[in-house]
């Protein structure tokens, strides 16, 4: 029997006894608790039911229905139904008796009579004694039941909840059986647990110890026995571990001694083998070294022979003996190895020219004798051969002091020498080019610190900018200071931008030469140098002339544009003038007709006179408009200048502000000049309005003086355009701010104005100047700042008879001839017809050229004169005239026009026309012309 079985058998009876005692005790306790729990259950259900019944009864009493039978019986029924609905355990039942012991309700279908007989008396007694019970009762007739009884007084109800004792105790039995079952299971579990514990703490360690002892016996190394407890078994295990360790240690020592011995024998054997191998290797290495030495020698010789320089080793003494030389050495000296190896012919074979040979020999030998390594280098030695190109070599010697030897090296420098010569030639060529160029050629450098220098600048800088090239090279500020102050930033910004982007620098900058502003155009290409500096190579050209030409061009373009503008205004004015003159012809002619009809004493007569004057003035304005655009011909005729000026001033007084006083001093009366009064009027207007503008802000005096002066030969010299003789001098002076002396020469230039855009055309004084010149006069200006301005105009006095006087004859010539009048304006036709018929003429009128031509061709001799308008639809007056003259060449034709570019007085004469009349047609003027033409034709 094993140890664990023995222990188990001793413990199990004790455990079983304990469990049995515990079971008995717990069954008693369970019985008591079950009884109490059942009573509580019954009590709770009965009380709960009675609460519901009470609630229903309260509803009746609260609403005063407890006396209403129908409600009371219905509500009682409801309460009993409530009892039916209560779920109670099967072995129990509830029933209700009234106070007289009659059964009212029963929860199960028990025998009613039996119930009444058993429980009726109990109910009656309980009601009478008011005793309510909740306990185990032995009911008479030997039935043992447990019940709970309660009373519901309002309805005289005795309520029972009962359960038979056997049913009641069934639960207890069930509990007892369950308890016993659990106890048995627990004891089995406990026994199992005890066995496991015994196995763990006693049986297993002993088993492990037994296994370990067996292993030690077999000679195994037991380092750890898996018994960790601190009891006697644990101590035994640890002692066994120590024992195992001691045995193992002894065994290891024996083993180690054996291995050591074996190793010693092996080592001695391997050392012997190694020595043998090394000896063999050394023999092999020596063979290889010998071979390698030979190869190296050949290799170095090949290198030396292929070097691009000549190398030799020779003696130091003057008679040169060579101990080594490579293939290139004699080649660079243009001789043979053999020649060089002979000490007596070395110098002769190398240098042909005896003089040069001796010279170089002496020099070389001296240099070598000095022992100074710096002297033992000779550059660019010429080696000449008759009939061949000279080559150049450089040579150097390096002494080997201990051996009385020198290493001589020689190399060909012919290519470099040739390149240097070529470079020199090229440099001098470009220098010549730059020095002879009219442009300034320069190099400009900027260091990373922003410092400027000119490494080179050609002499042209002196001719262009007037500063010597040497000065600029020494001090760049000499150049920079010459740049116009306003352009210095342009120059510097451009340089910095170009330095940053390394793109072409191009700038047009102004500079000051002797205070005069001039222009240069600079172009240069930047290059970034290694030290971070930027170097520009470029040139500068003086473009002052070009700039001036450009300015002139712009000015001319502006003038051309203005002229074109004026031309278009002129075209427009021509068109307007034509229409205006037609209208004025109607107004003027009709006014003249009316004036004849209305007697002078009639107040309307003076009104008509005013209309006539206004019409004349309007005619003048139209002419002035045409004159301004140079379309009309000047009508120079003798006029009384004083009257014209007075008229102008009268008009000006109404336009010039009252802050300006006009003083007039006219010392002449009847003197005449050959002039166009409209233009004289324009001169006065332009000059006086200019003066008033000058004094607009401050006010002042405007003085106009007219006097007669006689220029003798001397004084006439002051005016190149005038001859000596009598002149009219007109002076217009103001007290304005005066004209700036800088611009006084420009004031008569067309389009020159000091007024703002839109205020002055710059044409006023130019027009005045033009008119004065056309009248053979002269104009001058005298002005200083702050002292006002004075214009002086001189016109030669006229010798011709005053034309106005001739026109004063009021007798209008008359006649009785037949006239054909052609005009496309019906109003004019009607007016002219009336006008001429009053003068006695017979007038036939036509409103189209075709009509006129038709009438004329029917009877050409019927007409004595044709008067035709110039501008008509379909056919011009000139064309009509030509056609009429084709029919009858001698027919006199007068052409009249408002304005037309196609005809003027001269052209009319060329075409063979009798006369040329401008609209508006004046009765007097036209009558005179008609009479003159008719009379001339008759003659």
């Amino acid at each position, binding site marked *: 029997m094993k140890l664990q079985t023995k222990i188990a058998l001793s413990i199990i009876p004790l455990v079983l006894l304990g469990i049995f005692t515990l079971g008995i005790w717990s069954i008693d306790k369970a019985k008591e608790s079950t009884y109490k729990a059942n009573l509580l259950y019954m009590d709770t259900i009965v009380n709960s039911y009675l609460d519901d019944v009470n*609630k*229903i009864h309260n*509803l009746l009493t609260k*609403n*005063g*229905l407890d006396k*209403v039978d*129908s*409600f009371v019986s*219905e*509500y009682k029924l*409801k309460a009993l139904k409530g009892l039916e609905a209560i779920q109670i355990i099967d072995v129990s039942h509830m029933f209700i008796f009234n106070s007289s012991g009659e059964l009212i309700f029963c929860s199960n279908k028990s025998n009613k009579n039996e119930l009444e007989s058993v429980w009726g008396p109990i109910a009656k007694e309980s009601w009478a004694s008011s005793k309510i019970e909740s306990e185990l009762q032995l009911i008479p007739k030997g039935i043992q039941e447990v019940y709970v009884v309660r009373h519901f007084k309002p309805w005289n109800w005795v309520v029972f909840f009962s359960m038979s004792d056997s049913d009641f105790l069934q639960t207890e039995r069930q509990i007892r059986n369950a308890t016993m079952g659990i106890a048995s299971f627990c004891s089995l579990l406990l026994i199992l647990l005890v066995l496991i514990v015994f196995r763990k703490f006693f049986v297993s360690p002993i088993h492990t110890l037994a296994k370990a002892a067996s292993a030690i016996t077999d000679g195994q190394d037991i380092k750890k026995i898996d018994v960790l407890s601190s009891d006697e078994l644990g101590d035994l295990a640890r002692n066994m571990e120590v024992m195992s360790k001691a045995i193992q240690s002894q065994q290891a020592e024996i083993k180690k001694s054996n291995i050591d011995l074996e190793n010693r024998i092996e080592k001695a054997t391997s050392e012997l083998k190694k020595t043998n191998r090394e000896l063999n290797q050394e023999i092999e290495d020596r063979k290889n070294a010998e071979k390698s030495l030979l190869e190296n020698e050949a290799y170095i010789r090949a290198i030396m022979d292929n070097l691009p320089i000549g190398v030799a080793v020779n003696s130091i003494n003057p008679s040169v003996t060579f101990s080594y030389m490579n293939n290139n050495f004699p080649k660079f000296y243009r001789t043979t190895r053999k020649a060089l190896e002979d000490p007596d012919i070395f110098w002769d074979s190398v240098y042909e020219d005896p003089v040069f040979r001796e010279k170089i020999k002496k020099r070389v030998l001296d240099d070598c004798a000095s022992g100074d390594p710096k002297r033992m280098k000779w550059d660019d030695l010429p080696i000449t051969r008759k009939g061949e190109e000279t080559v150049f070599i450089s040579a150097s010697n390096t002494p080997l002091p201990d051996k009385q030897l020198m290493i001589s090296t020689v190399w060909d420098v012919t290519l470099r020498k040739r390149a240097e010569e070529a470079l020199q030639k090229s440099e001098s060529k470009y220098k010549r080019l730059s020095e002879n160029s009219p442009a300034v050629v320069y190099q400009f450098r900027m260091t990373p610190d922003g410092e400027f220098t000119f490494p080179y600048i050609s002499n042209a800088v002196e001719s262009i900018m007037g500063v010597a090239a040497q000065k600029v090279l020494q001090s760049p500020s000499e150049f920079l200071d010459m740049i116009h102050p306003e352009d210095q930033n342009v120059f510097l910004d451009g340089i910095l931008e170009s330095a940053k982007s390394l793109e072409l620098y191009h700038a047009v900058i102004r500079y000051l030469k002797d205070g005069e502003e001039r222009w240069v155009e600079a172009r240069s290409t930047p290059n970034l140098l290694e030290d971070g500096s930027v170097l520009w190579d470029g040139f500068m050209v003086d473009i002052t002339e070009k700039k001036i030409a450009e300015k002139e061009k712009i000015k001319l373009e502006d003038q051309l544009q203005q002229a074109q503008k004026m031309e278009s205004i002129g075209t427009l004015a021509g068109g307007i003038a034509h229409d205006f003159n037609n209208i004025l012809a109607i107004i003027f002619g009709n006014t003249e007709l009316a004036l004849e009809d209305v007697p002078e004493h009639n107040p309307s007569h003076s009104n008509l006179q005013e209309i006539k004057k206004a019409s004349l003035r309007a005619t003048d304005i139209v002419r002035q408009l045409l004159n301004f655009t140079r379309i009309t011909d000047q009508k120079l005729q003798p006029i009384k200048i004083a009257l014209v000026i007075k008229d102008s001033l009268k008009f000006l007084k109404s336009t010039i502000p009252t802050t300006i006083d006009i003083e007039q001093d006219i010392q002449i009366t009847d003197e005449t000049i050959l002039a166009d009064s409209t233009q004289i009027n324009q001169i006065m207007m332009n000059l006086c309005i200019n003066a008033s503008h000058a004094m607009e802000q401050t006010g002042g005096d405007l003085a106009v003086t007219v006097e007669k002066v006689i220029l003798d030969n001397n004084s006439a010299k002051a005016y190149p355009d005038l001859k000596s003789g009598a002149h009219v001098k007109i002076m217009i002076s103001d007290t304005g701010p005066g004209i700036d002396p800088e611009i006084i020469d420009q004031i008569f230039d067309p389009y020159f104005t000091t007024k703002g855009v839109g205020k002055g055309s710059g044409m006023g004084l130019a027009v005045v100047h033009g008119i004065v010149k056309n009248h053979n006069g002269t104009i001058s200006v005298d002005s200083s700042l702050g002292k006002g301005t004075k214009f002086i105009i001189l016109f030669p006095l006229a010798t011709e008879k005053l034309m106005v006087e001739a026109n004063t004859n009021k007798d209008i010539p008359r006649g009785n001839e037949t006239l054909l009048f052609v005009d496309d304006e019906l109003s004019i036709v009607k007016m002219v017809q009336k006008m001429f018929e009053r003068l006695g003429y017979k007038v036939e009128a036509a409103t189209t050229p075709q009509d006129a031509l038709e009438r004329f061709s029917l009877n050409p001799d019927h007409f004595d004169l044709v008067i035709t308008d110039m501008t008509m639809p379909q056919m011009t007056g000139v064309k009509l005239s030509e056609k009429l003259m084709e029919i009858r060449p001698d027919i006199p034709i007068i052409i009249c026009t408002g304005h037309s570019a196609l005809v003027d007085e001269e052209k009319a004469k060329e075409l063979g026309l009798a006369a040329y009349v401008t609209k508006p047609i004046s009765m007097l003027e036209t009558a005179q012309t008609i009479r003159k033409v008719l009379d001339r034709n008759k003659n």
Partner: protein
Amino acid sequence: MGNNKASVQQGALLHITPDIEASAREAAIFVDAILKGANPGKIPITPPAKFQIGINLSTALKLDIVVPPDMLDLAGDHVYR
């Protein structure tokens, strides 16, 4: 059968109508939701949360009707004579 408390007080047998106070409270919840930005169109239509029952016992007795206890209990204080 009446349609409000007054009719039952005046003799109708009973009325079952939505409870006024509960309806007012529901309306207040709607107002609160609308003021907080709810879309009125999205507020669901619900049946009244609470009803009020009123019974006239005199009428019941006259008509010889026994009002069941559950209903009388529901009427609570709204039982009139």
